[in-house]
């Protein structure tokens, strides 16, 4: 009797632990306040089982360091630093329990549950957000070097294609400088390729390129021979968007100092707001103490120069002129772009720049309604499956079958508790695996009951038949379950997200069925036999 009590205590403890791990608890949730655009914490009560993205909807992204624009020597290091930046950004992004993890050596996985806007999520994650301030080419070094660059292009055999009718363009533009520049090109009687495509802008270092020509110009300035002919200490950067002057759209190209006077690393605060006067979205920012000192020194030296604000290699807006020394505060003007974009920019600026650009190699977006349908269908299938198993077990094994079914409810409890306690994620294949494992879980009981029947046929007493039945069935149960666990482990090692969820559910299910089908059922048998010592036939 004492043995039974011990067993009952053990089962009781397991049940209590399982229930504790499944009790709904408070989870902190960061959500974005729609009115102010800021983040705030709320708490919700829910059962602590993590649902996979395929069940609750959301976005899964796999990213790698972009090597297409030049090899990154140490991608593992780059991805580790990128992980920290992305995590900081995502934490402010406003989803429940985001997943940011490194997979393998050089791959980053980002999972945002419940997020519906993949475009926005992608831009927040992927944006390099490298901010720098550079003085434009005040001395006209680039302009002076243009003939040499064109000479280099001519040597390379590049003919001017788009320069067939530049005069009309120049007239539209109406700038004297542009005309002069074009004239100088015709004076030499050899219209330079690049020269004929560039028009002097309004401020030093600014050039305008007709919108339809900019891919051509972009390919020209990225040629190695053009890069080699560039004046020392000067680089070219495109404006972030095209602007219309007269009837045509132009894109600005800026010649800027190669050395930034300050970068985004010195930035400590960035917010987003709408300028009440101009109704434009602006991102005011604040620099660190050190950054502010550096910034004011540099700006003091460059009074009346123009300063380009460059984000991810693109000049934001038209470079403003530095009128006086600037201290810790400044702002980036985004023009008519929506406030949402400004606040996302502020967010990525606060989190810092990515060490290298990231490229998305895999993307999945699952709508929340699809996930909800999957859960509903999965639960219906589970309930029907369990009902069928109960009918078969009780119909065939009677009272013993009923004991097995009682153990089966504990099996379900233990499995769910296992998922919750170890923080594993329940996915749709996992749900299928759970339903499937209910069918398999009774296998142990079937093996045991068939053994007991055989022992009874051999004429053993009830108690001995039960004991021997359990004992002799053990071998087969252990062997068959170990082999299933081994295949599930391989599946876990190889699979991703949903499939890993399946493997985990299968493994936990097998562990739970070992306890419920063998230990719990044995205990129930012992109690049953003790209560009815006069029993001569077993209901099995």
């Amino acid at each position, binding site marked *: 009797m004492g043995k039974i009590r011990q067993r009952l205590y053990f089962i009781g403890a397991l049940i209590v632990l399982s229930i504790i791990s499944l009790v709904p608890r408070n989870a902190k949730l960061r959500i974005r306040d729609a009115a102010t655009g800021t983040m705030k914490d709320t708490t919700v009560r829910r059962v602590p089982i993590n649902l996979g993205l395929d069940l609750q909807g959301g976005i899964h992204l*796999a990213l790698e360091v972009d090597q297409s624009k030049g090899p990154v020597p140490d991608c593992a290091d780059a991805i580790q630093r990128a992980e920290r930046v992305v995590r900081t950004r995502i934490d402010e992004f406003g989803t429940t329990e985001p997943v940011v993890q490194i997979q393998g050596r050089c791959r980053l996985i980002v999972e945002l549950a419940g997020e519906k806007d993949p475009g926005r999520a992608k831009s927040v994650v992927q944006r390099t957000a490298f901010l720098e301030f550079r003085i434009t080419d005040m001395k006209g070094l680039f302009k002076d070097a243009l003939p040499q660059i064109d000479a280099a292009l001519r040597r390379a055999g590049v003919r001017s294609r788009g320069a067939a009718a530049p005069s009309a363009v120049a007239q539209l533009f109406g700038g004297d400088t542009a005309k002069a520049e074009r004239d100088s090109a015709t004076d030499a009687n050899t219209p330079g390729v690049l020269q004929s495509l560039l028009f002097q802008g309004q401020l030093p270092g600014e050039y305008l390129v007709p919108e339809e020509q900019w891919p051509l110009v972009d390919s020209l300035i990225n040629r190695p021979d053009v890069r080699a002919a560039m004046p020392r200490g000067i680089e070219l950067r495109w404006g972030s968007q095209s602007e219309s002057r007269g009837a045509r759209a132009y894109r600005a190209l800026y010649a800027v100092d190669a050395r930034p006077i300050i970068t985004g690393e010195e930035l400590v605060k960035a917010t987003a707001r709408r300028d009440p006067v101009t109704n434009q979205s602006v991102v005011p920012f604040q620099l660190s103490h050190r950054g502010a000192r550096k910034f004011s020194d540099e700006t003091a030296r460059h009074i009346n120069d123009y300063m380009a604000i460059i984000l991810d290699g693109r000049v934001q807006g038209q470079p403003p002129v530095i009128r006086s020394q600037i201290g810790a505060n400044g702002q980036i003007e985004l023009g008519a772009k929506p406030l949402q974009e400004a606040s996302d920019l502020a967010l990525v600026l606060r989190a810092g720049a990515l060490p290298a650009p990231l*490229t*998305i*190699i*895999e*993307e*999945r*977006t*699952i*709508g929340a*309604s*699809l996930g909800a349908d*999957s859960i509903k*269908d*999965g639960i*219906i*299938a*589970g309930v*029907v*499956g*369990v009902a*069928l*198993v109960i009918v078969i077990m009780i119909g*065939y*094994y*009677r009272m013993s079958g009923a004991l097995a079914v009682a153990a089966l409810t504990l099996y379900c409890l233990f499995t769910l508790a296992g998922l919750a306690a170890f923080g594993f994620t329940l996915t749709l*294949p996992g*749900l*299928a695996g759970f*339903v*499937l494992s*209910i*069918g*398999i879980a*009774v*296998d142990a009981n*079937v*093996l045991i009951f*068939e053994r007991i*029947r*055989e022992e009874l046929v051999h004429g053993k007493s009830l108690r001995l038949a039960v004991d021997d039945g359990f004992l002799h069935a053990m*071998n*087969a149960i252990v*062997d*068959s*379950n*170990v*082999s*299933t666990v081994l*295949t*599930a482990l*391989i*599946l876990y*090692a*190889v*699979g991703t997200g*949903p*499939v890993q969820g399946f*493997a985990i559910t299968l493994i936990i299910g097998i562990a739970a069925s070992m306890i419920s089908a063998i230990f719990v059922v044995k205990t129930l048998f012992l109690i049953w036999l003790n209560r009815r010592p006069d029993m001569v036939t077993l209901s*099995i």
Partner: protein
Amino acid sequence: MIRLFANANYDFIKWRRWAFSLTGAIMLVGLGFLVTRGLNYSIEFTGGTLVQVELHRKVATADLRTALDNVGLRGADIQTFGSDTSYVIRARLTATSEATGDAGNEAVTAAVGKALDQSVGPGQYTILRHEAVGPKVGRELQGKAFMAILLSFVVTLIYLAFRFEWRFGLAAVVATAHDVVATIAFISVMHLEVSLIVVGAVLTVVGYSLNDTIIIFDRVRENLRKYRRQNLYEILNLSINETLPRSVLTHGTTIATTLALLILAGEVIRPFAWVMSFGIFTGTFSSIYIAAPVLLWIEKRWPGEDARGARAFGSRAPATPSVPAPPATPPSQPRTPQPAR
């Protein structure tokens, strides 16, 4: 009590040649499909874009097709998914578009949106699911899936060699390999989409079939010890008959749950449920008609010590089966953790 097949005494092994012919014929048909039609790989393996969309009004599939053709997605396939307003559009990456890679996926997504705007109308549809997989990920996954199946064989063989004896392990692996080939043939015939979940189902079939084979082999091991006079043919038949009630019950409950999944659990899980349902049949079949005859054949080809498989138990069985054997085992012999009872 109800007793199914209580004193069954069928000569299963006698029908082994018929069984081989049957499964051989089925597999030939399946392999024919496999060669001519190939497998319908999901975009997880090929790389590409999948868009699942719920239309707010009914549109003829042909209209969708035309709209997709118009935006240049000629290779895309369209499939209804569950209901006739729910569609899945798949555009696999082809060899030519592989160079553009991920940019290609972006373009395809935009093009699908355009096609839907044209055919259904803007705002008249909801995108339920969108997946885009780069070619690199697809290639990696193909390798991984292949490795997984291979690895599961190796691990199984090692475990069975450790737990039983190499003859048993080999027979079980042959039976399991049969199941994998038969399942792949089934996938090809049914034209099921081979996704990672389906590969998971195949591996589960491997585990399930193996499980079933082990239950029978465990009984064979025990009966070889118990009935010293019978030959392996008789022992195999006896063991299969003895485990028959268990097989019927367990397969019954498992089929009940997989059928529930197949019918009720929705479109995403359906390929998985199909493969599992088939796997239960082929797993049961192979445990009886592949594993057991192959064991018989292996035993004939490479006989154990007393030419009936008793060497599986370290040839240390005592004269009377009821006395436990001494645990002394020659070091070269495979170890059996369970001493003879």
